[in-house]
């Protein structure tokens, strides 16, 4: 598994009166296969995971993925760390399913034949083979999220970060995403409010007000999070 190191990271948005400290001195080494991230709204989860592929640069401290610095080696890091967001509509770039999957393979120095081959393989792997030429905007929410995932996974990253990928989905589609994620070879870092998605995870981080307040096995972490929410 890749090794992600978060070294004494603090981060704030805005300045002056509007300054808001969002992460406070976060120190972690992530090497497990399946890592969950939970916490209340605004606790800093999204900011934290955006640090992992250099979408956000830390104000203080540093983040490395297998020794690559997310600020200095951003491009290389983004190739290793795939990212899936909550809103599938905002992740789909091309008008049709197959084209969106193929889009991620542009500029990768692949021949057209290779691109087509990998696109076809991804369509089959994620159950979209009957929708290849389907307009992306006519897919169901669950299918859109599958497409978003397929478009990221076709580039074969080593790490997959998912920021609340099931928040906009119904239970059945959430379960489908869960099954898909279960089968991945990638290291997975999953932010979620669907706590049952974390069953069988190796490690769960609980965020509160920009700090990691609990770090452990899913059962205790979920209990700690429930405690926190009830306080």
């Amino acid at each position, binding site marked *: 598994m890749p090794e992600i190191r978060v070294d004494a990271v603090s981060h704030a948005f805005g300045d002056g009166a509007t300054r808001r400290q969002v992460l406070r001195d976060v120190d972690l080494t992530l090497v497990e296969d399946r890592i969950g991230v939970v916490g209340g709204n605004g606790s800093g989860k999204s900011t934290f995971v955006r640090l992992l592929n250099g979408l956000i640069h830390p104000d203080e401290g540093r983040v490395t993925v297998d020794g690559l610095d997310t600020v200095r080696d951003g491009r290389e890091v983004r190739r290793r760390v795939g990212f899936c967001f909550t809103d599938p509509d905002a992740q789909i770039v091309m008008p049709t399913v197959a084209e969106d999957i193929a889009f991620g393979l542009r*500029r990768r120095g692949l021949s057209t034949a290779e691109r087509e081959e990998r696109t076809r393989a991804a369509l089959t792997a994620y159950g979209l083979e009957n929708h290849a030429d389907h307009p*992306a905007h006519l897919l169901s929410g669950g299918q859109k999220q599958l497409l978003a995932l397929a478009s990221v996974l076709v580039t074969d990253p080593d790490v997959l970060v998912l920021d609340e990928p099931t928040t906009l989905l119904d239970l059945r589609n959430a379960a489908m995403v869960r099954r898909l994620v279960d089968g991945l070879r990638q290291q997975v870092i999953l932010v979620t409010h669907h706590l049952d998605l974390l069953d069988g995870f190796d490690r769960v981080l609980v965020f509160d007000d920009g700090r990691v307040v609990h770090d452990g096995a899913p059962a205790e972490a979920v209990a700690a999070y429930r405690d926190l929410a009830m306080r």
Partner: protein
Amino acid sequence: MAGQAVPLFHPGTSLVHRLGAGTKLLSLLVAGVALTVWRAPWQIAVAFVVVLAAYAVARLPVRLLLRQVVRLAWIAVPLFAIQLLLASWQAAVGVVGSFVALVLLAGLVTLTTRTTAMVDVVVRVAGWLRRFGVDPERVGLMLALGIRSVHVVLGLAEEVRDAQYARGLRASPRAFAVPLIVRSLRHADRLGEALAARGIDD
């Protein structure tokens, strides 16, 4: 519904489908120039025969053509009436006929050409912009995003309208425009982030 707003690629194996995207885009350009020069009623008639023949060769379902005609009628009929009142029937036929013929032809190109193929052409054509520091891939990406954004914004418009009906609000332009703009901007923000995550800026 949003899905019918703009014609999208309709897979097929016809001659028109197999023509290169560059050829089709160039033909469209030539037709555009020709129809600004030749607008006599008989020339418009010829243009329509050509367009309809091209649809026939492309073996597209007739409903895809009819759908576009119906949508165009909203603009074409009033435009025709105005021209008829202010100018002559010849002018009305010339202006409206050339407009409708061109839009239908553009529709045929989008129906028979993958966006990827069009993007590739644009990237190639925009290659000369490189010496001005413009990245041709980016120009192509803009085109793809433009096409996709039409569908996204139309989908958002539907959501906003439904939300208003659900709350019993009467349709006021401002009550419609403000949330639509807010949602579109939020969408653009998220899209920008997703593009960055997919390595577009690298």
